[in-house]
Each structure stands twice: as structure tokens, then as C-alpha cells.
């Protein structure tokens, strides 16, 4: 293994490189698809965001630097969209779906088997339905002559035209209705892994149900909580169909979250460049969350 070996290794090394390439060949179709249809558009997204491109074509497109962004941050409609997106994500995902999902998972653990089956079937059914159907059903639910007002009338409670008076609340509740199943499934799985002795020990020590949940269960499942929060935030950030079916961003721009605003700017106002700049903002926010999510998974692995 001295001088003669040194010359001999050159061959196997090249062989290994070729072998490595060959072994990597099955990756090729996936890599090509991803590069053309995902990486390509993202690169385009970054480029277009700095141009004044219009829907009519690329002929009159100029590089405009940060104009789109300065314009966006001075645009009250954009600021409105950012605020609404925040309200939508925090209200419907972080607070709504997350809390409701956890509550359902905790209660279902204590419920009898048939009740558990009924609850999870109903909640999951709302989740499995296509987005547009869910949007339409929620429209019918919150509509002036809809089921919600019918129920309120039956209970002799005040009614209102939800889609006009509180559209963002209606849209948030719609997203909670549609999306809670995911959190419920995540938390049901997580609660299964909580050691029963731990909870019982706390009970013997005199901890009430709230204390047990807050001090024992939640700390044990904190990783699932973080993962769930990340994933539902990412999902909620890009919700378009649900809102568009229910309100089309209206009335006025009261439910115009970033995806809807982006669509309106690019296709209704024909400002592809400006719409893309908004898309880039959305993409960057999504990417940040995605990076945090990966880091958490990495920590879990180590």
C-alpha cells in the first residue's frame, strides 16, 4: 500500500465518480421537473419582481430596481393585505385551528369510542372536501339567508349579514372549520405518546386537569406543537381558493389577504411586475418559516 497503490487508486477513484453519477441517475427526472417548474419560476419571480412587466407582454418590460417594493410599502392596499394576512394566519391557524385541534384531541381521549369516531369523522370530512367546495359551503353557512342566521334565529339571538359586517371573521372561521382536522390528527398522535405514568403521577400529586395539561402534557408534546404551528402557518399563508370562493377579497378589500391581493394586482390590474413583487414577499415569508421548520426537525434528529 505504498507507491504502487498511489497510482492504482486514480483508476478506482474515477470509477467511483462515474459510479456515483450512475447511481444518481434515477434522480434525474425529478431534478429536471423540479428545476424547470419550481426553481425556474422562483428565479423568474425574483427577476420579475424588479421589473415593470405588464400582462400585455414582455416587450415593454424595464428593470425598475426596488420601485415595486417601495411602491408596495407606500400602498395602503398592500399594507391592508399584510394586516389581513396576519389576522388570518394568527386568528384562523395559530389560535383557531391549533387550539381547537388540541382541545378536540384532549377531549377525544376521554370520550367513549363511538363519540370519538363520530367527532373525528365529521371533522375530517370537512378537511377532505376540496377547497372550493368547502368555500362554497362556508359561503352558504354565513350568507344572509344562510344556516348560521337560521340557527341564530331559532335561538332568538341577533343575526347579521356576516359576509358584509364581519367578513374577515367569517373567512377565519371558515378556515378553522376546514383545517382543524390536521391539528387534531397531529395532537391525537402526540397525546398517544405521552407516558401515562407521568399524567397519573401528576394527578396523584393533586394537579387539576388544567395543570396537568399545562404543566405535564404540553411540555411533553412541545415538539409536536411547534411542528404543527409551523405547518398550519405555511398552509394558511397560501390559502386562496377558500377566500376567493367566499368573498373574492371583498366586500371592498376587507378579506384581501396577500395571495388574493397578489392575484388581483397581477391579473385584474394587469401589473405582473407588481403582483410578482407581492408574491416574492409571500415567498420569502414562507421560506423563512420553512427554514425554521427544517431547523426544528434537524434538532429533533440530533
Amino acid at each position, binding site marked *: 500500500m505504498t507507491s504502487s497503490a498511489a497510482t492504482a487508486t486514480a483508476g478506482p477513484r474515477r470509477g467511483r465518480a462515474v459510479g*456515483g453519477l450512475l*447511481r444518481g441517475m*434515477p*434522480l434525474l*427526472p*425529478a431534478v429536471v*421537473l*423540479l428545476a424547470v*417548474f*419550481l426553481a425556474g*419560476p*422562483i428565479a423568474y*419571480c425574483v427577476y*420579475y419582481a424588479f421589473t415593470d*412587466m405588464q400582462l400585455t407582454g414582455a416587450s415593454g418590460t424595464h428593470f425598475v430596481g426596488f420601485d415595486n417594493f417601495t411602491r408596495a410599502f407606500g400602498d395602503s392596499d398592500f399594507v391592508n393585505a399584510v394586516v389581513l394576512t396576519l389576522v388570518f394566519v394568527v386568528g384562523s391557524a395559530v389560535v383557531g385551528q391549533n387550539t381547537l385541534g388540541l382541545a378536540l384531541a384532549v377531549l377525544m381521549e*376521554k*370520550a367513549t369510542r363511538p*363519540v*370519538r*369516531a*363520530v*367527532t*373525528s369523522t*365529521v371533522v375530517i*370530512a*370537512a378537511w*377532505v*372536501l*376540496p377547497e*372550493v*367546495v368547502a368555500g362554497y*359551503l362556508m359561503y*352558504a353557512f354565513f350568507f344572509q*339567508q344562510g*344556516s348560521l342566521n337560521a*340557527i341564530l334565529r331559532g335561538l332568538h339571538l341577533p343575526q347579521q349579514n356576516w359576509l358584509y359586517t364581519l367578513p374577515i371573521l367569517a373567512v377565519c372561521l371558515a378556515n378553522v372549520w376546514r383545517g382543524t382536522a390536521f391539528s387534531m*390528527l397531529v395532537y*391525537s398522535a402526540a397525546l398517544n405518546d405521552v407516558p401515562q405514568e407521568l399524567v397519573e403521577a401528576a394527578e396523584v400529586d393533586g394537579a387539576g386537569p388544567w395543570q396537568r395539561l399545562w404543566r405535564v402534557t404540553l411540555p411533553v408534546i412541545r415538539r409536536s406543537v411547534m411542528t404543527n404551528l*409551523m*405547518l398550519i402557518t*405555511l398552509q394558511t399563508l*397560501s390559502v*386562496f*381558493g377558500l377566500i*376567493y*370562493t367566499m368573498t373574492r377579497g371583498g366586500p371592498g378589500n376587507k378579506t384581501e389577504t396577500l*395571495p388574493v391581493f*397578489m*392575484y388581483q394586482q*397581477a391579473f385584474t390590474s394587469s401589473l405582473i411586475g407588481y*403582483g*410578482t413583487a407581492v*408574491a*416574492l414577499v*409571500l415567498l420569502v415569508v*414562507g*421560506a423563512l418559516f*420553512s427554514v425554521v421548520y*427544517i431547523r426544528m*426537525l434537524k434538532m429533533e434528529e440530533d
Partner: protein
Amino acid sequence: MAVTSSPRAVRVRPEADRQAVGGTRRRRVATGRIAVNASLLVFSALYLVPLLWMLLASVNAHGSFKLTVPSPTGDNFRQILNTDTTYRPMLNGLLMCGGGTLLCVVCSVLAAYPLSRFRSRLRRPFLYTILFSTGLPITAVMIPVYSMFVQVNLIDSMPGTTLFLAAAALPFGIWLMKNFMDGVPLVLEEAARIDGANAMQVLWRIVLPLMWPGVIVVTIFTFIGMWGNFFVPFILLLSPEKLPASVSVFTFLSAHDQTQYGQLSAFSIIYSIPVVMLYLVLARRLGGGFALGGALKG
């Protein structure tokens, strides 16, 4: 301090308490359970209202926003079961989602094999890129995709839309498939290798047969996702005769000022049936492993 000074006393007290009040405690647990069951049932009933409304509206001749049906009718279904309204959009959806799913599953099986089996310096960065892209909001890239498709003349093309759907589903597909493949033991493969089988033969003859359940899960998951996808075909397709059901539901709602809610509900039911069926298959196949547990098995 007080606790540590007399640990025994502290530990004994609740023990005695428990024996003394064992009966009331059990009763309290029972009433607690009834309360939990009752509140879950009330909640489920509320949750069910919109779904119930859809079922009722589909057999309601007057198509109003009410939770009552004076005389059930099949008229709504009869009205929509024709080529233009139902069959063609469903077929379009089936072609695009079926083709996209097939492409996505084949590519992810192929990609998962090297990622699962071979060690390489590029493996980890590649996997992290895949995981990263599963989190990206696809909604945000649709405008550049639209501009790109206009430039290469792929706009309003069903194959183009199919390709994009496949690509968008690919990161999650690869990730899931790789995890399923990791569960197939290496030992059998090594034996085949010694007998001279190449990587593709091993993948086809040994690995795949052992991970059919995983492949089916990825297939169903991908298909459900595509079937419900509204934004991608909404942006990339223009001609009404190319639209899949996910978008044609929408044109339904906006086309007529006097929306036929009964017909729309009937259409929504027909459009939703495939994914609901697939989900039931999925839930049954995954059984307890999917945290659904007894949910759908009863």
C-alpha cells in the same frame, strides 16, 4: 421545605383520602365523561351543519339557503349530469390529476431510491432542499409560472398543467417515499446484489413489492391534493372545455346571477365523492398507524 420534612405523611394522606372518597371520585369521573361526550356531540352537530346543508340542498327543488326540504327531488342531479356540466370537467380532472399523480409517483420512487440507499456528500443538502420546498407556498409562484407558460406557449395546455401539478407535488412525494423506503430492510437487497442484479432490477423486483402500502399512500395523497387544487388550473387554463371540476365549480357559482344552489350542491357532491372514497381507502389501509385509529373503523 414542609414537604421534604414529612414525606411519608404527605404521601399517605391522599391514599387514605382516595379510599374514603373512592365512590364520589368514580362518580365524578363518570359525570366528567358524560360532559365530555355531550360537548363533543354538540360540537360535531354544529360542525356537521354545512355538510348536512349540502346534502339537503342537492335534493331541494327550490335551492334556497334553508335547512329544510319539503319534498326531496332528484331533479338537481338530473340537470347537471350531462357532458358540459359534469362529465367533461370530471374527465379533465381525472386526466390531469391522474397523469400528474402517475408522473409524480414514478419520479419520486426513482428519486427516493438513491436518496434512501446511497451515501453521498450531496445527499443531505438535496434532502434539505426537498424538505424546504415542501414548505414553500406554491400560490406565490403562480404568477411567474403564468408568465413563463405564456412565453413557451404552454398556457391553456392540459399537458403543461399536468406537468406543473406533478412538479408541485414532487417535493412532498419524494420526502414521503424516501421515508417509506427507509423502512425496507437492506438485507434482501444485498442478496440480490450478490446474485448480480442491478439497481433498477433491485428496485423493481425487491424494494417496490415490499413497499406497496407506502406507494399507495403517496399515490392517494398526491391525487387528493391535485383533485382539490383550484389555483393552478385556474391560472394556467383558459378554455372552458379544458377546465377540471375544481375550477368549473367556480364558474358555476359566478356564471349565473341566479346561482342554482341545488345544482351546485349536487355537483359539489359528485365532485367530492372520488376524494372521499380515496380517503376512506387510505384511512383503512393505514389503520392504527395514521393516528386515525379506530375513527373510521368504528
